[in-house]
């Protein structure tokens, strides 16, 4: 692996976006940053700014209001980027699949690279998902 690719794998900056999640998955995403899991030891930082991010962590099903925001955020993240759908809702819309306002999983709006199932997702599974995303990032 070249210097650029090593750096890419070692420094994933994360943008966390909540579509219309119940907040269960969001709490688990934030739990990854706590001393118990401490994802910063892999260089992961929660950025909060799409223009600085490499990995989009998206929770919750897409509804009619958030679809536009999600697409906008995706376009604002500079290439190379990967998208991780965190939780059952983000993957397939889960229990909300037949709600009148829900469009479906995240992949209905933007291309998804890694699906992390679970309701709610455990922090270990999120870290696993991000590591898979990093493998994809290294090959880009």
């Amino acid at each position, binding site marked *: 692996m070249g210097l*650029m690719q090593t*750096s*890419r794998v*070692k*420094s994933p900056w994360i943008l966390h976006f909540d579509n219309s999640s119940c907040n269960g998955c969001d709490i688990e995403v934030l739990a990854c940053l706590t001393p118990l899991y401490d994802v*910063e*030891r892999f*260089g992961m930082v929660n950025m*909060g700014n799409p223009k*600085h991010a490499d990995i989009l962590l998206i929770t919750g099903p897409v509804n009619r209001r958030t679809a536009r925001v999600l697409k906008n955020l995706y376009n604002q993240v500079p290439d190379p980027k990967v998208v991780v759908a965190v939780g059952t809702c983000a993957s397939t819309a889960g229990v909300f699949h037949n709600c009148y306002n829900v469009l479906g999983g995240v992949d209905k709006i933007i291309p998804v690279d890694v699906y992390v199932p679970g309701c709610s997702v455990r922090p270990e599974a999120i870290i696993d998902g991000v590591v898979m995303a990093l493998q994809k990032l290294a090959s880009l």
Partner: protein
Amino acid sequence: MWGDRHMLEQFILVIATLVGAPLAGGLLFGIDRKITARLQGRYGPPVIQPFYDFFKLLGKEHIAVSRLQFIWIYGYLVFMVVSLIFLVLKSDILLLVFLLGFAGVSLVLGGFSTKSPYAHFGANRELLQIMAYEPVLLLFAIGIYAQNGSFLISEIFKQDKPLLFSLWPLFLAVLYVLTIKMRKSPFDIATSHHGHQEIVKGVTTEYSGPYFALFHLAEWYEIVLLLGIISLFWANPLWVGILIALVAFLLELLVDNIAARMTARWMVRLSWSIGLLLGVINIAYIYLTKGVS
């Protein structure tokens, strides 16, 4: 007056600074992240993490919001490098302070050249930060003049007695400036390192990819410059000064972790009341004891 040999030495010194300062600065930021993580009960990233971040950012796509902002980020970097070169060539401290001011203003204009309200907020706050620290740095330069009768940094190196003895109130004020310039809590105001919910990333919000890497590069030069300025307080022998600067750096990390973020207005008020007061009393005392020459 100056021989070729002298010129060559200075040239080598400048090249060594251009290459060495980012390495040292990046390592300092890596140590910063490691120590901060340990203070928070975490393991923390590797010490060379800032270099990974830097090279990753270089390899990313840059999204142009306004062409002007790229000129200003180059300006920020160039002014910062030039002021560092002023320091290593032992040139004029007053000009160094002005160049540092120009660097800050470039960053502010970079923020204002985009349409993002977050960048505008960040730029406004960066202006307030410049307002807070620039007068203190000016007083520092005047204090050196009052003590040595010259603004030249080379004159500081000729004195046997360290500046710290006569300028210790200004030393405290410059420590305060270091916290503002490092944009650490309680002055995590313009770039919002930790408070993303408030103004996203402040003045750096609209920079992406390689241009954000340039911002990091400028910050690495900046930290070396600031620690260099602090080490001037004990220039003879210099290693004591560098030791003092490193202790000051560790102190900043501690302050960053135990302090909450405060508002920009509070920063200006505190800086102008305590920083300026310390500086003015210091200079007045020197002139009273030595007499105005």
